[in-house]
């Protein structure tokens, strides 16, 4: 018999009807109980709308350096807020409270706008109250209905501007951030990381806010802790342990030439751990806690030095002569040259190519050099010819392979991509086919031309030289596991040879003035000078030590180093300090001027766009901070 015989269907239909009607009846009963029997209880709760959730901010996780020293911690502060009953009484209370907490009319209006958006949440009047204000308010508690003074964790950065770019800062959730999935759990008015590690690891640092429910009287006075709902304690954020060596970071900040702009990055070449990351000028991240002072924000955002901007990962500079090691590595891997190769034309202070004369930085010339000596002397003529031997196509291919057109993937937000032409079609596109010549190779060979690298990307390249030739994933907390990492593809002999040549840079080459600490360690490195059409050149130095088995790589750039780069002694001091061979007090350090000054880039092409040779202006937020405590919401 078919399962769909009418009699069978009729039987099942009866049972189904019973179930449906039974479920309906159960719902009706529950609603009857809620709406009729318990009506007065809920009516009271609704009329008075007594139950208010008060967020209990979770303390953010602390951030420590590799030895457990504090980079970011929490102090206790007091927040003054009001539990509003309705708009009129809130306005009246705000008027009365204004003289004590120093609110002007504009601030009162902002608070009212804020209240209209989230009428059930307490209105934060003063995010960071002093003890005097708190006691003054406590004395007059009766005339301020709904006054709420709670202890709240306040973010504090003991080293202030010294670690500013590294740790970032915290601020209130903005409207745009609110729309992002990542911050869906953050309440309106909640704090989150705005830059640096605070932003990158916000998910672990943030924790989860708790909530307590209080009942308030019709006037807004807190009657008692909520009856029906329990209190949810906040879940503190997790601590983040970084690879930073705070002591080294402080040392760098101390010896960095005062008033100069630039950046220093130190890392462990064998693991990819970042040991120090310093960008100058800095800013005070503590000033952002509890809403930034508009004047301070204005000063930061109009400053020509762009202090908010992290020069280790957010600025591109032409690499200058530091690029020569990249040329040497590419040529060695392709077998174009060996470490003992000489070039057809010895250096006489320049090279005639086509109808142009390309100068070497040394007008007297370097004579006939092998590759290792050419590195030590940073001879431009040698590298012009090496570039021509290597050829443009190989150059573009290898530069892409070595990551000179990508990001390093360091675990900090806002790293920009380094720039290098992808192929000859780049020139076809920019200048038009056949409107450019292979003379661009000569500029590219000495790190000028259409080449702009971030400090972190160049340091990562030297990390390859200082280790087994393979790039490490650079990190402050966790290495990222994404994507293949580039590799030099050089034999151990070639690597050793290049390192040897780099030790000569410091011993008798372009950086011979830099500290060698009595020969206790061998420091390898390379100077560089980046031509800058806007003014004096930018100075580079990237070095590592000990040369045989490097433990630290340090790269530095100093912008507009007018008198020539200060940079080599800066870096060698940092290395010496880290390895414990330099015991000179930081305050006594005298900077010695090295002699490397690169020739101006040859003007080969008509109307070269200047996009390649300058630092990228940071994208600055509008002059009013979007996360200032009392900013009106965008309409």
């Amino acid at each position: 018999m078919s399962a769909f015989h009418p009699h069978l269907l009729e039987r099942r239909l009866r049972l189904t009807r019973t179930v449906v009607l039974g479920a309906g009846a159960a719902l009706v009963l529950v609603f009857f109980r809620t709406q009729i029997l318990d009506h007065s209880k809920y009516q009271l709760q609704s009329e008075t709308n007594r139950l208010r959730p008060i967020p209990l901010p979770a303390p953010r996780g602390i951030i420590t350096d590799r030895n457990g020293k504090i980079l970011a911690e929490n102090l206790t502060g007091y927040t003054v807020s009001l539990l509003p009953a309705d708009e009129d009484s809130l306005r009246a209370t705000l008027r009365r409270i204004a003289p004590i907490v120093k609110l002007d009319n504009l601030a009162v209006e902002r608070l009212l706008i804020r209240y209209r958006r989230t009428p059930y949440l307490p209105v934060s009047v003063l995010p960071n109250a002093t003890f005097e204000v708190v006691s003054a308010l406590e004395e007059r508690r009766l005339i301020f209905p709904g006054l709420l003074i709670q202890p709240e964790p306040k973010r504090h950065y003991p080293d202030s501007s010294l670690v500013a770019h590294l740790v970032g800062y915290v601020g209130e959730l903005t409207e745009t951030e609110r729309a992002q999935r990542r911050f869906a759990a953050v309440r309106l008015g909640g704090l989150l990381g705005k830059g640096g590690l605070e932003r990158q690891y916000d998910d672990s640092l943030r924790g989860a806010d708790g909530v307590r429910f209080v009942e308030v009287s019709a006037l807004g006075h807190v009657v008692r802790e909520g009856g029906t709902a329990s209190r949810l304690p906040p879940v503190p954020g997790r601590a983040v342990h970084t690879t930073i060596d705070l002591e080294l970071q402080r040392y760098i900040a101390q010896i960095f030439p005062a008033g100069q702009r630039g950046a220093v990055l130190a890392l462990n070449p064998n693991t990819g751990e970042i040991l120090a990351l310093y960008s100058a000028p800095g800013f005070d991240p503590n000033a952002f806690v509890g809403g930034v002072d508009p004047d301070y924000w204005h000063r930061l955002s109009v400053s020509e030095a762009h202090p908010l901007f992290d020069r280790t990962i957010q600025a591109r500079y032409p690499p200058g002569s530091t690029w020569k090691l990249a040329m040497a590595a590419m040529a060695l891997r392709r077998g174009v040259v060996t470490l003992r190769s000489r070039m057809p034309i010895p250096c006489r202070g320049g090279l005639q190519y086509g109808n142009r004369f390309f100068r070497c930085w040394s007008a007297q010339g370097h004579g006939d050099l092998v590759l290792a000596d050419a590195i030590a002397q940073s001879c431009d003529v040698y590298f012009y010819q090496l570039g021509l031997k290597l050829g443009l196509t190989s150059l573009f291919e290898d530069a892409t392979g070595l990551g000179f057109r990508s990001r390093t993937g360091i675990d900090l937000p806002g790293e920009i991509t380094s720039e290098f032409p992808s192929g000859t079609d780049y020139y076809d596109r920019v200048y038009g086919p056949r409107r450019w010549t292979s003379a661009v190779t000569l500029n590219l060979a000495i790190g000028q031309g259409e080449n702009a690298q971030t400090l972190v990307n160049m340091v990562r390249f030297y990390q390859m030289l200082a280790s087994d030739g393979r790039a490490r994933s650079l990190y402050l907390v966790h290495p990222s596991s994404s994507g293949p990492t580039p590799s030099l593809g050089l034999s151990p002999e070639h690597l050793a040879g290049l390192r040897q040549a780099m030790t000569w840079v410091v011993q008798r080459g372009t950086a011979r003035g830099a500290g060698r600490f009595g020969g206790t360690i061998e420091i390898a490195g390379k100077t560089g000078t980046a031509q800058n059409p806007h003014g004096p050149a930018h100075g580079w130095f990237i070095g590592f030590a000990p040369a045989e088995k490097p433990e630290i790589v340090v790269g530095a750039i100093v912008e507009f180093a007018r008198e020539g780069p200060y940079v080599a002694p800066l870096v060698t001091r940092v290395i010496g300090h880290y390895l414990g061979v330099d015991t000179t007090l930081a305050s006594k350090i005298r900077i010695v001027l090295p002699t490397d000054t690169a020739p101006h880039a040859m003007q080969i092409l008509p109307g070269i766009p200047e996009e390649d040779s300058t630092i990228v202006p940071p994208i600055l937020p509008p002059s009013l901070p979007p996360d200032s405590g009392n900013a009106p919401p965008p309409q």
Partner: protein
Amino acid sequence: MRLRLSEIDRPLTAVVLALAAYGLATLYSAGQTDVPTFVATIWQKQLIWLAVGTAAVVLMFRTSPRLLEWATPYAYGIGVVVLLLTLVAGTGAGTAASERSWIAIGGVRLGQPAELAKLAVVLMLARWLAERREAPATLRDLLPPCLIAGVPTLLVAKQPDLGSAIVFIAILFTMLYWAGTKPSLLLLLGSPVIGLVLAFSTVAWGVWIIVLFALLLWWRPYVWEGLAVMLANVVMGVVAVPFWGRLAPYQQNRLLAFLNPEVDPRATGWHVIQSKIAIGSGGFLGQGFTHGPQKRLAFLPAQHTDFIFPVVGEELGFVGVLVALALLIALILILLRIARRATDPYSSLCVFGVAGLLFTHIIENVGMTVNLLPITGIPLPFFSYGGSFLLACSIAVGVSLRVAWEARQSGYAEL
């Protein structure tokens, strides 16, 4: 074939029109808050969706059940593929921002495929069960339908949208029942889940295993099937507790969050309290249309989607709730009658499956507003704002109208 307006099923039309009007009015009211938000104008968008839905009703009414039966496997296939795409490229939205339940092209959110996939599963199950004619008699017979419903269930659960996953399971069980599967067999099919839940109390689990053993002796399924059921229950019981215990606390929290992902678990208490206050304060006659203070002051969470029923409770009181529940239950009963009178098993199963789908939505959505059931984010038919689900409901209504019309044409008379 001529379709005359006078021949369509009047009770169904009347109830659906009443529900659509009631739902739209409630949605309008839900937007009337003291501080206007985007919800204020959402009823206008719903009006457009209602127009689209009306077109869908007409289209489905003109579609022969035979054509539908032919197209069923394609609809099901497309449904599964789109669910897969959603997992890969889905986006979150609104209150369910952490889920991947939306499909979007070029940043424009097109809809939530899970809602339409529910219909596809109803159709596919109807086709498979109708072709057999015989009721599934063994657990082995139940394997294909379990696969048909199981694949989308897993895909949806992975979004994660547990509410919709539960709806798929409910559809499977109601349709198996309508196809004549013995309740004992359905109980055996569901028994491992019961075993898993009960495993957290050793006594309860022990009693359950003894009861199950007795049931197996009484019902006498095939020996190997009985063994499989017993084994599944024992494995669940043995595995559950040590597995749970070996998890770190944060992993346990994560699993708990997985069981209830739609809402921030920390805010759940708040939602239920506010919902109950709104409903309870409504009293017998309510606070008056558009005048509910809980809603006006934005105390109600998601008052235009998941928590729209408290708006009815607060503003129109117990009377309004009774009317709404009566209409919703009447809708289900009318669908059951149409399923009973359908001319062929496929049509009958389709309509019954649709009834099961809507019933699950109604009970879960209304039940959670009074803390009778845990909170999941599934919409209330004809009330909650949302295009995909309204479209799915419209298609279901169109199919049901056609099935009722066919029965009438074939001269069905009450026995």
